[in-house]
């Protein structure tokens, strides 16, 4: 009688053998193989008890919060669905301004008064100038805050396990906002702004993806990448342009925007 070898017993345990009936029959008749098989079962039962840290019901929501800002936009599909977007460019641009203005109103409570109401917001962005002003205001604010994160990391002193989790959290949020403005800039035909925002978004996402505890070499590597991309310089230039455009938009518009 041929005994079942260890591999056959393993296959039998996982029900992967070619002839389950024959193996079963042999185990019924052979005490030695039965003992080996019982031992294998005991060992694998112990393995089943390998502890795994428990995650709560809310874990999925936590994961979502962490990745939401890093999801790439589905631009291509959007454009392909629109097909004739160039023909409807003006209408799309106007619609996006309304969206951005609304989002800006909700996302920037410090820059925009909490007294704003949907009715007044809609009324103010109904004209294109108003929408552009709000967009410029929002982008200017985004650039300022991004610059702060970049400068902090650029000037951070390498040390063992430097904790950059706070900067990462801000970078992740900023990347999420950035995407919205980049899309709007593209739709309004401001390719220069869209280009810089695209570069900035990549750097922000890059920061958010780094380990939260950075070794000196990792920090230096990140600083080198930021320097190579010239991102701080680009952000400063765009920030200045945005401020000039805001001023050009007129003192009436600016004061109106601040009261928003």
């Amino acid at each position, binding site marked *: 009688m041929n005994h079942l070898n260890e591999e056959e017993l393993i296959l039998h345990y996982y029900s992967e053998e070619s002839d389950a009936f024959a193996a079963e029959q042999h185990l019924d008749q052979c005490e030695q193989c039965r003992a080996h098989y019982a031992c294998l079962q*005991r060992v694998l039962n112990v393995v089943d008890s390998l502890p795994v840290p428990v995650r709560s019901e809310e874990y999925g929501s936590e994961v979502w919060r962490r990745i939401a800002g890093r999801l790439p936009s589905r631009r291509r599909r959007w454009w392909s669905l629109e097909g004739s977007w160039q023909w409807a460019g003006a209408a799309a641009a106007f619609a996006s301004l309304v969206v951005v203005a609304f989002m800006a109103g909700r996302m920037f409570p410090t820059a925009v008064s909490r007294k704003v109401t949907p009715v007044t917001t809609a009324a103010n962005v109904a004209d294109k100038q108003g929408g552009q002003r709000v967009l410029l205001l929002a982008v200017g604010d985004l650039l300022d805050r991004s610059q702060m994160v970049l400068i902090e990391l650029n000037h951070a002193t390498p040390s063992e396990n430097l904790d950059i989790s706070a900067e990462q959290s801000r970078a992740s949020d900023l990347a999420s906002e950035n995407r919205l403005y980049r899309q709007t800039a593209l739709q309004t035909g401001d390719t220069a702004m869209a280009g810089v925002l695209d570069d900035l978004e990549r750097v922000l996402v890059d920061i958010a993806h780094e380990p939260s505890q950075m070794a000196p070499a990792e920090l230096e590597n990140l600083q080198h990448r930021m320097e190579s991309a010239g991102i701080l310089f680009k952000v400063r230039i765009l920030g200045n342009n945005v401020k000039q455009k805001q001023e050009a938009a007129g003192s009436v518009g600016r004061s109106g925007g601040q009261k928003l």
Partner: protein
Amino acid sequence: MDLSDGEYVTRARTGDSDAFRTLVERHSRSVFRLAFRMTGNEQDAEDVVQESMLRAYKQLSKFDERASFGTWLYRIAANCSLDLVRSKKRRTQNQVLAPEGDSDLENPVMTVPEPGPNPERMALSGEVRERLTAAMGDLSATERSAFVLRHFEGMCIEDVSRVLGCQPGAAKHSVFRAVQKLRRALEPVVSAARS
């Protein structure tokens, strides 16, 4: 209204981020369990969960709607885990010079963290638990992955080989080697615990 995964995938493909959010909320815990068993490290498992979800989102257009989203996501997570374990291993090998005679560096990152007390963990005696932790840590990345997918996730050898990107025969042998190593390490203590 509870839609199926497939319906949420269809919506997510059109840019509906809320639909993808539902998928993330549904599957994160099970992906975490898989990632933890494969990496043996809680923080690594967290990273794998996030990376897997991001990869899944980017590859939604490649998903065959006739397949199970959960299985597809598991494959992505298993690959992420393997990538991470292998890259950490390479990094560690580059950075750390092995002390002479130290044979334990075959798989330096595959260590299960010291578990805290909870009812499930208390069920195992200290010695058995230590042996199990060490034995899992002694498996190579491929052996551990193949074993986790076959034993804990219930994938057939054919599916394991697809996830690992190898021939079914190689996947089968990885499972064999893993079980044999575990058996050699645990049999003495399991038998002693019974007697």
